[in-house]
């Protein structure tokens, strides 16, 4: 895993550079990433695996931007700015790339919003809306994935996972437990706990729930939040009524 993004020790002088993003002249510290600089200047660049506070992973490729003179687009989260850069964040080509990447993500696993617990609170769903991905041209793979409900508080549904590894990074870098990691390679990749054992049997999990909070989709959720789990309990009513009647 690459180290944390470049931070500067206090007292060390950082050079300020000037660059252009979408025709705007911008000044920035040379240690900042393109994504940092864009955010600070209220230029929105779509991103999924990036999360402030965690190390940069650079894998979702949604934050790709074009830099004049570069042979191919680069990811804004992992590229630091330099003097005179001319950056485009929303060309037609980039928009098309982002839509296609989202299509690939939606088709990879079973992202069906209408039956997902995170419907309406999902970063993937929001990104699809933002980037104008209104249909998927590639076939859904329709691979069945397991749901692990063994943890007493949380649940992992691999059908909704986008392999952004935010859970892996937060568990390792912030909680220090390193319960999560990724097994396999390529399309077979899957997040695992300990030796690929049920989450409930994990000896290293501290049940802190940080992984659940950083998950962008409905893959990691708190139990009791799914529609089917919204149980109503009205058994108390006859009892209370009886008590009142006895008065």
């Amino acid at each position, binding site marked *: 895993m690459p180290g944390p993004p470049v931070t500067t020790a206090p007292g060390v002088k950082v050079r300020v550079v000037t660059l252009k993003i979408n025709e705007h002249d911008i000044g920035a510290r040379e240690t900042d990433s393109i994504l940092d600089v864009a955010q600070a200047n209220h230029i929105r660049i779509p991103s999924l695996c990036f999360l402030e506070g965690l190390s940069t992973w650079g894998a979702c490729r949604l934050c790709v931007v074009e830099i004049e003179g570069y042979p191919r687009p680069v990811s804004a989260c992992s590229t630091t700015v330099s003097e005179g850069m001319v950056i485009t964040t929303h060309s037609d080509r980039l928009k098309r790339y982002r839509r296609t990447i989202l299509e690939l993500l939606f088709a990879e696993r079973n992202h069906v919003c209408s039956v997902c617990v995170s419907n309406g609170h999902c970063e993937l769903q929001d990104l699809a809306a933002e980037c104008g991905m209104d249909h998927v041209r590639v076939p859904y793979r329709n691979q069945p994935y397991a749901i692990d409900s063994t943890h007493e508080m949380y649940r992992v549904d691999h059908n909704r996972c986008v392999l952004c590894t935010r859970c892996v990074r937060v568990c390792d870098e912030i909680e220090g*437990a390193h*319960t999560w*990691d990724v097994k*396999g390679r390529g399309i077979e990749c899957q997040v695992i*706990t300990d*030796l690929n054992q049920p989450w409930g049997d994990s000896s*290293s999990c501290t049940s802190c729930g940080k992984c659940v909070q950083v998950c962008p989709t409905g893959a990691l959720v708190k139990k009791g939040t799914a529609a089917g789990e919204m149980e109503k309990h009205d058994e108390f009513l006859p009892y209370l009524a009886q008590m009142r009647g006895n008065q």
Partner: protein
Amino acid sequence: MLMDRPRTERSAVVAPPDDDKRWKIIDVTMRRNGYSGHALIETLHAVQSYFGYLEDRSLRYVAMSLQLPLSKVYGVATFYHLFTLKPQGEHTCVVCTGTACYIKGSRDLVAAIENRYGIKPGQTTADDALSVLSARCIGSCGVAPTVVLDGDVLGEQTPDGLIAEIEEVL
């Protein structure tokens, strides 16, 4: 000498899963690398060569000895194709599926094995006698198509010839 390796060697603190003598050899590998986490892949190579495959308790022992998270060890063990988490058959036949072998008919070899033994690459016969694997180019392209039968490289194979070779070792 590497700067992030501990200067004083850590010693093994974890007892092996049982008194099998092979654990001693695994320990030697880990000690040679100062029980550093960087030695994970080297250690897994050692475990696989002495035990034939990586079972859960081996992974657990290696993780504890090198002080690595369990999930990280599992992640590394499943990333690399040469590591196997399942026991292999008594004999192994690796069919090379590199480009030269592909052009010269490695598909026919795989089909012949499947016809005769009913197993595809990655599978083992029910009696544990034969495992078939596929490899990404073993670098003997000059004599394609090639197979590696129990460690011996056999070049210029034909479907019938290969079956005869396998029958001979079984």
